[in-house]
């Protein structure tokens, strides 16, 4: 069985964001990088599946500059067998369609039985790449899964819907799944696995070999949002704050009437 898991390196969302000089993306300085949260669930699910079935080969793929290899090593330490690093210093400029086409070009002739991705990235958050890859490859895809089971080529997954309801979906491999928070708790890599990961295959492929399409959209401008309604900020002693707030609530809402 061949499994592919696609991961993205994103800034830690607690980072101090600044804008780049072109004003169309965030600046790379002062950012702490980590694996996209949803992709961690994807890696964990892929590793669990690998452990469950015999003779599985699990490839982890990521697109980005050299720094993403650090994160890929974590995925290898979690249990992926080999890494495919699509080397691209300008990956942040590529739209979901381009990213998906790169992944699809990589996966095209490799006959993966299952592909896992995160449901979205934490930085761009478009939530498109997984489905686009599946559609390009012509395989079924189930998004936002919070539960996954695999037996004899049959996939049973639960999708998370609004309001906490889950939809039970079945399909057959090959298929692609996008993973949501709640699917699992990603493991913490053990030291022997961290050491083993250092020796695992981690191939770098120049993005030009796989990038054959043009973008369909671009981020024209990135900026910090304005605060709604002036966003009155109150600071000071607790007792005073409470009095101020009560006055505001009386003036502006009907709830204390």
């Amino acid at each position: 069985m061949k499994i592919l898991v696609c991961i993205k390196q994103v800034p830690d969302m607690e980072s101090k964001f600044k804008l780049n000089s072109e004003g169309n993306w965030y600046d790379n300085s002062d950012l702490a990088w980590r694996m996209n949260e949803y992709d961690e669930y994807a890696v964990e699910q892929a590793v669990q599946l690998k452990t469950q079935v015999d003779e599985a080969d699990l490839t982890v793929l990521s697109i980005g500059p050299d720094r993403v290899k650090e994160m890929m090593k974590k995925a290898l330490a979690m249990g992926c067998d080999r890494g495919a690093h699509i080397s691209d210093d300008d990956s942040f400029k590529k739209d979901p369609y381009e990213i998906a086409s790169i992944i699809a070009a990589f996966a095209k002739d490799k006959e993966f039985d299952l592909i896992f991705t995160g449901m979205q990235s934490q930085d761009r958050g478009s939530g498109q790449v997984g489905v686009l890859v599946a559609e390009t490859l012509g395989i079924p895809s189930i998004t936002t899964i919070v539960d996954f089971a695999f037996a004899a080529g049959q996939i049973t997954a639960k999708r998370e819907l609004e309001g906490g309801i889950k939809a039970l979906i079945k399909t057959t491999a090959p298929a692609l799944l996008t993973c949501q928070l709640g699917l699992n708790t990603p493991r913490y890599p053990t030291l022997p696995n961290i050491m083993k990961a250092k020796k695992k295959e981690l191939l770098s492929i120049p993005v030009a070999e796989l990038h054959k399409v043009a973008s369909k959209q671009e981020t024209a401008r990135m900026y910090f949002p304005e605060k709604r309604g002036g966003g009155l900020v109150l600071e000071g002693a607790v007792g005073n704050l409470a009095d101020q707030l009560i006055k505001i609530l009386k003036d502006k809402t009907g709830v204390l009437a």
Partner: protein
Amino acid sequence: MEFTREIYWNVGSSVGVLIPMYLLTLTAFAVLCYGFWQRVKVYRLGQELNRTDQLDRRIIDTVRSILLQSKLLRVAGPGWTHAFFFWGFLLLFIGTCLIVVQADFTDPLFDIKFLTGTFYKLFSITLDIAGLVAIVMLAGLFIRRYIVRPEGLENTKDDLLMHGLLFAILVTGFVIEGARMAVTELGTPLAIWSPVGLVFAKAMAALDHEALRSLHKTTWWLHLLLVIGFIISIPFSKFRHIFTTSANYLFADRGPKGNMVTLDLEDEAAESFGTAHLTDLSWKDIFDADACTVCKRCQDRCPAYATDKPLSPMKVVNQIGEVAFTSPEANLIETVSTDVLWACTTCRACQEICPASIEHVNKILDMRRNLVLMEGEFPGEEVMTAVNQVEVNGNPLGIGYATRGDWAAELGVKLLSEDPDVDILYFVGCYASFDKRNQAIAKAFIKLCMAAGVKVGILGKEEKCCGEPVRKMGNEYLYQSVAAENIALIKQYRVKQIVTTCPHCFNTLAKDYRDLDFDTPVEHYTVFLEKLLGEGRLKFTPGEAISCTYHDSCYLGRYNDIYEAPRALLAAAGIKLNEMIKSRAESFCCGAGGGRIMAEEKLGSRISETRVKMAAETDASTLISSCPFCLTMFEDGVKGAELEGQLTPKDITEILVERLEA
């Protein structure tokens, strides 16, 4: 008249007596040796560890600790009782040896008798009183154990055997003496040199000599058999502590206090890290279990035990012993249980008080290492998140690393990247860098340094967590990687002196980093400021009198024996302290050590609340500490214990800065 007595009186020193006596004695010693040999084989299952370096110092300290019973005397009641019993019994043992030497060696071989004259009188009265003291102390110990019975003291068959056997040996000793004196010494001037024997003799005076002789002979043999029984039972009962505890003084950890083995993580041959099985332990860890007398002093001081968590350091040590001697294949972590292992705050109260020099903390930490490094297990998801955050942002709080130095901007503190020529590097630590409450301490410290004309620099966003919380949670790998980054950075700036406000950073940089090729001097701010005070560079004006108590942080106190510097600083600022019932080496942890600052306290009651209640009992309105973790715990603790408004947690720096001489 000659002051002496006939040895082997009434029993006779015929071959019929000597041969069975010596045969029995030799057999007893042979069994004793066999018994210990069986145990030595088990100790040897452990890993190698050199505990015979500085042998001369070790021997001197061991002899001193045994003879003075100094480690026991740290707890007065049972300590003195045991000490007097020990001294009494030791004298009796020495006395018996002297008799053997004279009766069976010097007298028959060289015709030399030294148990005569004044020496005999002193010998006689000393042994008599020693015996009495031993009996009285034994009775005291018996009452404590079986009648008063303090909480947590568990009685086993061994305890009953020990009390019974010792009592029987002592009493039969006096019966023998009494019977002999009733026949030979009553009415002689010698009798008063055996006052206790005299009482026994008078009590038996009504019996005729024949009966006395018969009683004497029977009791003599009984006494001998009891002693033989005692010798034989040593390796097979808690009596073994006579040897094992003493030997443990010899093999004691000689510091630096709290030192953990810095694992070689690149070791290709290593298949496992940390402790999961008996064979992962060192021989000393197994030996510790045999040195334990189950005195429960560790348990009495354990903050986890005191707040109804499943951990008792004594039980952990005993469980290792059980596994070692009954099921050496068993999984230690399963035997001890993960809840127990995660509950430890590494406060070191157990280890400091242990009268047997047992090392509790590292056993627990080594098992944590196995859980984290081999299983990827943590006490909870919140800890895993915090550990991940140390990896990503260099702090367990998960705040963007780039803002680490922001607190200092308004004070004009130099970053070493701008100007490395400073008097000291202030290693700020995560809490003082990011936590609003603790930033006040960082700022106060800077103001104090400025007042003393000390040029301070910080690393700002280049600084990372010192690694202490993750190391104590078992993640040696992450610890070593953040430590290496900090070390490389500090070396690059050629720092001459480091000062920390956090005792955890202090202990880690000053001691743990030494294994990683780092030798820059490190001081905690209390020591550093006390020096400035001594040099006259800092002056305080005593402000209004406030009632204060001071909490000794574990990593400043027990780990580094810094008890006076904080108090001296406070005294200089005119603060008088009401000490808590538990202070200095007996201080009660705030609950945050051992990486527990990152963990939710899910079991039992809150350690911090227990501690703030102790502070409130002193009627103090201010609870002063010198550790950001303690302060954080107390800020929560006063809320939980509903002491808000009554008790205000503060750091020493905050008190000092308010009282700086203008």
